[in-house]
């Protein structure tokens, strides 16, 4: 499988070097560092073959996390493992992952590397679980001598519900659900929708005692069709079509496959229960209508109208519309009724920011762009207009959580909270 894992900084210096199989020499890796990382060639492809050695890598900010191998490994698995490794490190370093904290915690990283992979084969790589027996500065001696506790730990780690420790107790049992949707849209110059989808995620914060069994339901069309209709129930909500769902490891997948029911024993604390993808019947929260005019040789005019298409009593927040301008822009005059628009040369665009934007509302921005003279004969390649926003209490897909039932031996009644938010993913309109 994998021969070694290496952390490299942007200059091509090795920060962490852990060998799992001795079919690789250090000089092969330093060659990769000098030739590829230092010349930034690694940005061009995530896998590079040099003389029979494959270098599979990801780049997190300035750090290259590299796996080397000489055999025909599963690349997707290797990449996913590297991502997971970074996730574990972040969990240990309070969310950070940079050169300083790698150098500061290198002893801990070696300990983690020893545990997450053995002989190049990925092993336990769950941060919550690892934290139970790998800690900065070593474990408490009490634990190391308590054989019973250790046995419990190893049986959890290798068991079927490795993500949840037994015997948790909370005085107040609570569950928080966050439904977060990112809308990805690509509109053509003429304003027709080329591509639109919603990438959703349901985040759960779970503060529950014992071993609760949860059952989760949404207005999923396929599930609702299966349910027997109760007498007197209105049939207005037919549910929505979900293209695809991906679940956290705690969800019982065979049960979902058979009954489309989402059941699980949750991990403790925060986790991502599921992600989903929807392409049908998406309610786009905003419409962008740009008009582009060339007024003579050195003058451009771009007018952008945006319209919010959601209920009046809702608000979008933190809007930022980026209107690209040519490199040789000398001056931009902007004019809009709400928000602030400013030319930001480092972004090569005019950024129009609006703090709060009501539903069912239109706004217009007019930009007059003066161009400086340039020697570059190339016509301006117009990048698309992009948009950022958040709309709380709104889901672009129309997804609603219908229930979350929790069964536990103790029979407690937990408090359940939910909120919805829709964000812009890649919200683009070609110019």
């Amino acid at each position, binding site marked *: 499988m994998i021969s070694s894992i290496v952390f490299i900084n942007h200059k091509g210096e090795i920060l962490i070097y852990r060998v799992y199989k001795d079919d690789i020499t250090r000089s092969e890796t330093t060659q990769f560092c000098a030739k590829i990382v230092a010349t930034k060639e690694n940005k061009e492809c995530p896998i590079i073959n040099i003389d029979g050695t494959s270098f599979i890598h990801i780049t997190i900010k300035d750090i290259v996390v590299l796996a080397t191998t000489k055999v025909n490994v*599963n690349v*997707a698995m290797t990449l996913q493992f590297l991502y997971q490794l970074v996730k574990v490190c972040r969990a240990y370093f309070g969310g950070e992952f940079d050169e300083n904290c790698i*150098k500061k915690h290198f*002893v801990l990283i070696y300990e983690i590397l020893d545990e997450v992979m053995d002989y190049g084969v990925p092993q336990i790589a769950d941060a919550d679980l690892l934290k139970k027996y790998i800690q900065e500065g070593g474990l408490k001696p009490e634990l190391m001598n308590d054989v019973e506790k250790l046995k419990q730990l190893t049986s959890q780690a290798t068991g079927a519900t490795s993500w949840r420790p037994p015997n948790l107790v909370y005085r107040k049992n609570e569950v928080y659900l966050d439904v977060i949707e990112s809308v990805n849209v690509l509109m053509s110059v003429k304003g027709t929708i080329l591509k639109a989808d919603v990438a959703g995620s349901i985040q759960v914060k779970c503060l529950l005692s014992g071993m609760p069994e949860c059952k989760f339901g949404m207005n999923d069309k396929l599930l609702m069709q299966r349910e027997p209709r109760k007498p007197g129930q209105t049939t207005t909500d037919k549910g929505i079509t979900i293209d695809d769902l991906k679940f956290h490891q705690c969800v019982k997948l065979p049960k979902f496959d058979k009954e489309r029911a989402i059941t699980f024993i949750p991990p403790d604390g925060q986790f991502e229960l599921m992600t989903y993808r929807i392409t049908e019947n998406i309610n786009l929260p905003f419409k962008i209508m740009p008009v582009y005019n060339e007024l003579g040789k050195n003058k451009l005019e771009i007018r952008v109208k945006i319209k919010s298409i959601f209920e009046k009593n809702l608000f979008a927040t933190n809007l930022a519309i980026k209107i690209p301008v040519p490199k040789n822009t000398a001056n931009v005059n902007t004019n809009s009724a709400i928000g602030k628009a400013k030319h930001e040369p480092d972004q090569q665009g005019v950024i129009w920011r609006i703090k709060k934007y009501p539903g069912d509302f239109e706004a217009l921005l007019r930009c007059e762009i003066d161009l400086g003279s340039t020697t570059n004969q190339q016509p301006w390649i117009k990048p698309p207009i992009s948009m950022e926003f958040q709309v709380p209490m709104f889901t672009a897909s129309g997804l609603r959580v219908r229930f979350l039932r929790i069964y536990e031996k103790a029979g407690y009644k937990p408090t359940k909270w939910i909120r919805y938010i829709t964000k812009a993913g890649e919200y683009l309109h070609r110019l």
Partner: protein
Amino acid sequence: MAYFGNNQQRGELQELYADLNDLNFEKKKEAIKKVIAYMTVGKDVSQLFQSVIKCLEFQDIEMKKLIYLYIVNYSRQKPDDAIMVIQNFRKDVRKSENPLVRALAIRTFGCLRVPKLNEYLIEPLKDCVQDDDPYVRKTAVLCVPKVFEVSPELCPALLEQLQKLLEKESNALVLANLIQSMREIEVVNGKQLIVLNPKIIQKLLLAIDECMEWGQIFILDYLATYDPVDSKQAEIIIERTLPRLSHINPTVTFCAVKLILKYLDYLNNGDLVKNLCKKISPSLISLLSWNQPEIQYTILRNISLILQKFPILFENEVKVFFCSFNEPYYIKYEKLDIMVRICDSKNFHQVLNELMIYINEADPHFVRKTIKSIGKIAVMYDKALAEAVSILVEFAKNVQQTNEAVQELFIQMQIIYRKNRNLYKTNDSLKILFSIIDYANEPEAKSACAWIIGEFAEFIPKSVEKMGEYVDNFILEDRLVQLQILTSGVKLYIKYPSLCSALIQQLINSAKDSFNPDVRDRTYIYWRLLSTDPEIVKNLICYVAVGSSQFQKDIRLWETKDLITALENMGSISNLFHKLPNQLYKNIKVRNNNQQEVKIYKADEKQEVPSKEQEIKKDDQIQQQQQQPKQDFDLLNFEEPVSNNNNNNNNNNNNNNNNNNNNNNNNNNKIDVYDLI
């Protein structure tokens, strides 16, 4: 930070040596950390071996791990010193009550990789394989291939033990590691070790539900190499695998897709196959829009394989492959490639519309690929010709300087003209191309230009002058260009004998002294022919191929017979490079697939059972007719996927303001507050 300082002084090793032998425990520990830091940056600290292993007497587990790391790194350089730690390991493995310590010892022990130490390892390892604690077992199981690689002669008993364990092991995680470990040994050994029977298969399938994500991958990956005995068994395994399509780890999903796709061949129920395809497709599409570009890339690299065997999966899904502006270029290249493959006589309009946008991108290489793709589509589908050419002509009009894309434009236009000679009549493409002809500077592009001038001399106003320029610079040109200038020059002479007599003299004079034997030979042939019978030359050289059979549409990547092997290796490095494993790795033997025939799955409503792929014929005769060096498309047949016509246009629905928001009651004003359900 302090550990990584660059101010290495001479006495450093001595200092460390002193600290390691210090009586103060904290000082020792700090010294060990320093040793590891030096090791990381590549400094040789092997001289400290003895001092370091002396520190093993402390029970501090953090320090123990660091020392083990050190030992593993240097054991092969210092095998004699390494013997000294053997007792320590054996004590840990046998005596420690702590499963973590037992596992750590056996894990490290296996990594020493010194043949003479392995004798001491066998007995403790046998114990560990039978340990009560699953955590120790899963570690011990992975230790066996480590030992096997170095000292296979010591292992027969261990291997037997593993086979027994496969029968009786109940812990899913151990089982997954066991499978992976036995596969590693199989690779080294070259012999089959895992013997599957229905009971074990059943057990593995159960284990998939219970073990962690990596374990699921190992098992699915292994089962994908298994050939089910009959349709019934294939169905059972597929059924147990289906739930994995919803796993959050993209590799688990991908391995499940791989297994199911492979097993489809064994099913004899056409409806079931169709249903399965319906389930796989959305799952794959999710992977294609995965938010980690590297993962997306690996999946994209496998799509052409899937597309070749299962065109049905991406029916009407061409939009998935549209490039987004901010994607890394390595993704965009792949998507472009796939868009050409997925393009058919129904969706070409959609594809061309999208490609048109890419022509304006900033990256010259990407634009070049786009031009090439448009050219390919124009040649593949006659219906698409007019539209594709108009895009290319529009591009040509805006060319103001030479760049990569322009070169490709000439190359593609040549191919298009070859196939559709009459194209020059229908638009002004020739005129526009000729106006930018000076921008051609790559050999292939230049030779394309020379061909165009020769072929369409009558329709280009200053063709003879232009050819004169080419002939003037003949000696400086590349071989490819020289050959084409020669042929085109002769063509011009045939067309305008009096006007070109000086030109042909000059051309033959320069060409007969060319350094290149091919050029010389061809020159003499033309020369002799021209001096004996110009009529023959005319028939030979101004021959217009009737029909366009040499432009078959093939964009097939894999040989049909290799499809199954490729499918089994989906996701692996070899597939990523579009090769078979044995082409990339010498030690890998490809299993002989005594498979009936390779099935291709198309969306065709009439046929219940997937149709068989037809024989592929190479048309050798056609190649002879071509005087030109071969272009980069293959001359193979290509069956166009027959698709049913349910173009679900999702867009229309988008403006429907579905008022699903029934739940928006009075809570609306609490914008950032959680709602009670």
